[in-house]
């Protein structure tokens, strides 16, 4: 296990940074979750390219044909809308800004969220305020979709990766969610979301404050949404 002096120095610096809470090593599961999410979004956004190479004989037949070209369906993307949002979760004693990417086609929409979670009230249990990230993945249905508004309902999961406490601390919840978007402009909208945690891990409690008092078990967020297409 011999290490070069430079390597030792880098390692020592890394340990020092870790011990001071300045640098956290992302866990492999986080990397896998992000990669999977990006791959799914990419898959939905990519146009289908499985167009067969025409043979010489078929070319002639195609050119001679007067039937309508079915090509638009083949070249169409799998998604008919892609939305990006910046949002704010309304939490007591915590700040939670985040971004969301929504990719949909027709009635179905898949939403991905990434948020950043910090404490806004000091705690005797921790010196720092940074807690970690929230990742959300939702499958939504959009039964109401008009020019000026749309409403979606769906199910998904919220995963809290609490790097700020320890690199391996995670909490998760199974989450029904309602989303209403208002579109005063064609591409720019305002988003309202509400969710509740039906099932959740032991260390996560929505609707209970730090001092044990209870509150509404509904997490609201509002945001500004941009429609890419």
């Amino acid at each position, binding site marked *: *296990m011999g290490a070069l002096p430079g390597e030792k120095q880098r390692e020592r610096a890394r340990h020092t940074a870790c011990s001071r809470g300045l640098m956290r090593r992302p866990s492999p599961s986080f990397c896998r979750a992000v990669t999977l999410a990006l791959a799914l979004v990419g898959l939905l956004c990519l146009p289908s390219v499985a167009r067969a190479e025409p043979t010489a004989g078929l070319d002639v037949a195609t050119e001679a044909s007067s039937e309508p070209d079915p090509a638009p369906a083949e070249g169409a993307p799998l998604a008919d809308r892609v939305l990006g949002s910046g949002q704010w979760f309304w939490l007591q004693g915590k700040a939670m800004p985040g971004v969301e990417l929504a990719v949909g086609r027709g009635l179905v929409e898949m939403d991905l969220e990434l948020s950043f979670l910090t404490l806004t009230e000091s705690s005797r249990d921790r010196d720092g305020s940074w807690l970690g990230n929230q990742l959300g993945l939702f499958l939504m249905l959009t039964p109401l979709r008009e020019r000026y508004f749309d409403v979606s309902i769906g199910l998904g999961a919220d995963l809290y990766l609490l790097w700020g406490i320890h690199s391996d601390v995670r909490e998760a919840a199974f989450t029904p969610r309602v989303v209403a978007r208002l579109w005063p402009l064609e591409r720019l909208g305002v988003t309202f979301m509400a969710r509740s945690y039906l099932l959740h891990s032991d260390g996560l409690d929505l609707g209970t404050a730090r001092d044990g008092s209870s509150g509404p078990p509904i997490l609201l967020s509002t945001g500004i949404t941009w429609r890419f297409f």
Partner: protein
Amino acid sequence: MRTLCRLALLVTLSAGCAPMTFSKEASLDFAAYPSLSFELGGLDGSARQSAYLASELREHSGFRSVIQATAQAFEPATAHLSVELSVQASGDDDLLVTLFTDDEEREELSYSASVSYRLRARDGRMIDTGGESVQDENTFNDAAEAALDALVLHYLRPYRL
């Protein structure tokens, strides 16, 4: 549309800012055992891993003080933790295969690690015992540190945030 707006307003007014709490209970009574001495043994318990464990326990555990046990040192700690660490490369039962593979081949290996631990009070009474294991790590050190992280997670300082 008007109904929708009323509904949104109603939900907003009724919910407002929601309280949400992250918490973890203590795995043992840290007030009764405020100081810890530990020794890391096993086939793969090197000085580097010992230093890492000491650093992580000091940073994250509920023990107020953490020291490495040595044969000469007087140990005033209220609890003593014995940790055994072992790391294995996937598909290789032979340690020499792991040691003499080049970097490119080593990248294809995955490593698993396990720790077993016993926590005893100063009077020798057993307080806590258990084990943790991790798999699919990229390097030997990643596997060792991930297993030690799992141990530290077990003794994480309780919080309610």
